[in-house]
């Protein structure tokens, strides 16, 4: 059995940044396991620009952003295996080490011993079945990501006349991509009364090409026995059920679905990692350590991000903390404090902090559950208001953050819990829309 200090599962943006950071913090024997034919993960098919504004102060395409990190990995001589599927993570008998079972065509099935493991498997798209859209099941129904791979990496067009359900960023980006490559995108329907995508994408991917966006609409029927022939959309009421009489039928040969991403945690679950029912990702502390000692998580496997820059930042934190774990062992005496999300804060990452061991400045990321206007993000240590920051607008499509300071926390040795809450500003209430 080969022995490593750190095994990283996934060679996408999270895995790459975690590897670089772990090496820079002194971990020698690192192995990245990647199931695809190249490093870079989903960035390889995201050929639009807009990546890296925070990290590199440049607007890069996905492959360019990935390339920056792939170079760092290669420059450091970090080992990686491609075409390799991880099948299991378990605890080694008699030590705190982990046993990773993986497989590829040259090594067969093999076992690795690792002091620490970083989960960086990313996420998958919600499929049609999970949305329970009635109708036929012909060819021509693709998740936006599948279509993105076909068009951007293989050069194949999955259709000519397209309806898109879901206005997440991938759906918006694919509306533009399909249009530029010669297809006709007839409409983008969004179940919610707001788009889950960035404003910029709505303007540059839809408005630029006169593609209508229908908010509070969903697909209620798919026609076509062999290939999609038409899709019917209808307006939904506040209960998100279709309103009779609002049906509109679009003839088309393709339906793209961009209806949300789900962290891929089947491996984590089998390894005994506790998952959050809200994010579907592992519950972690400030070190990005999961409920299993020495197993860390970062990137979209932890929670779905809006910007890859935050993935890289978070992954660097996971890499650094994995290094500390490898060098010092588990921080057993650590006192932890829970962060409780309230009032439109859906969740926080991390969920627990260790006031003594944490970074001097810790970024706590979260998403809101509704569009909030003229509100503030309030932080409480037990019942005491610590900070209150005005945010003119917050939307579920974008991540929010609060910075916690270790110095500040050191003044609260008996702290039981931290609460992060969205509060309406006094001057103008009634600013929240569901």
């Amino acid at each position, binding site marked *: 059995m080969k022995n490593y200090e750190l095994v990283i599962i996934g060679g996408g943006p999270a895995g790459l940044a975690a590897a670089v950071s772990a090496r820079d913090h002194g971990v020698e024997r690192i192995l990245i396991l990647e199931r695809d034919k190249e490093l870079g993960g989903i960035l390889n098919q995201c050929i639009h620009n807009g990546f890296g504004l925070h990290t590199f102060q440049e607007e890069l395409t996905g492959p360019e952003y990935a390339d920056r990190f792939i170079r760092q990995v290669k420059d450091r001589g970090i080992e990686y295996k491609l075409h390799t599927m991880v099948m299991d993570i378990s605890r080694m008998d008699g030590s705190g080490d982990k046993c990773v079972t993986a497989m590829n065509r040259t090594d067969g099935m093999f076992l690795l011993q690792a002091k620490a493991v970083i989960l960086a498997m990313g996420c998958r798209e919600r499929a049609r079945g999970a949305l329970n859209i009635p109708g036929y099941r012909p060819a021509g129904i693709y998740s936006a990501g599948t279509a993105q791979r076909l068009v951007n990496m293989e050069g194949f067009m999955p259709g000519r006349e397209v309806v898109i359900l879901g206005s997440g960023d991938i759906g918006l980006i694919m509306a533009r991509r399909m249009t530029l490559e010669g297809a006709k995108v007839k409409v983008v329907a969004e179940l919610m009364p707001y788009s889950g995508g960035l404003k910029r994408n*709505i*303007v540059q991917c839809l408005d630029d090409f006169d593609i209508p966006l229908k908010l509070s609409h969903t697909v209620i029927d798919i026609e076509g026995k062999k290939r999609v022939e038409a899709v019917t959309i209808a307006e939904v009421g506040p209960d998100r059920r279709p309103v009779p009489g609002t049906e509109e039928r679009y003839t088309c040969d393709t339906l793209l679905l961009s209806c949300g991403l789900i962290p891929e945690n089947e491996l984590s679950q089998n390894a005994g990692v506790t998952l959050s029912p809200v994010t579907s990702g592992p519950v972690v502390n400030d070190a990005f350590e999961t409920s299993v000692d020495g197993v860390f998580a970062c990137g979209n496997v932890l929670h779905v991000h809006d910007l890859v820059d935050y993935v890289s930042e978070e992954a660097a934190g996971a890499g650094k903390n994995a290094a500390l774990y490898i060098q010092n062992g588990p921080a057993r005496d650590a006192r932890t404090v829970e962060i409780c999300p309230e009032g439109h804060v859906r969740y926080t990452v991390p969920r627990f902090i260790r006031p003594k061991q944490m970074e001097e400045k810790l970024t706590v990321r979260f998403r809101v559950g509704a569009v909030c206007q003229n509100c503030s993000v309030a932080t409480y240590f037990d019942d005491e208001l610590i900070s209150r920051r005005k945010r003119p*607008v917050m939307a579920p499509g974008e991540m929010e953050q609060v910075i916690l300071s270790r110095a500040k926390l050191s003044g609260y040795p008996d702290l039981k819990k931290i609460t992060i809450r969205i509060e309406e500003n006094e001057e103008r209430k009634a600013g929240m829309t569901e």
Partner: protein
Amino acid sequence: MKRELTCIGCPLGCTVTVTLDGDTVSDVTGNTCPKGDAYARKEVTNPTRIVTSTVRVSGGTAPMINVKTASDIPKGKIFDCIDAIRDLIVPAPVSIGDVILADAAGTGVAIIAAGNVDAIA
């Protein structure tokens, strides 16, 4: 003449109204910050975009290379740029920054590779 725009500066997405006097902007309203004013003025007088697409590769480990305009080009030229690369085939290897087309559709802007494709060994 008045034009309505959605500002892309932040999630607020202000609806900004621009009053045009011929080709010059005489008034911008509806924005809630200076960024909105600047965005609206540029967007009505000289809207530009980065265009990203793909070009076919021969002899490579992948069939396509992703490309982009080296800088932003006039919005009205987007489809001309796509037409200009429609039938291009570039031989592998291709690396980030390689010039695929020196002048995209008379914009004076190059189309460059924005990814890497190795040659088949």
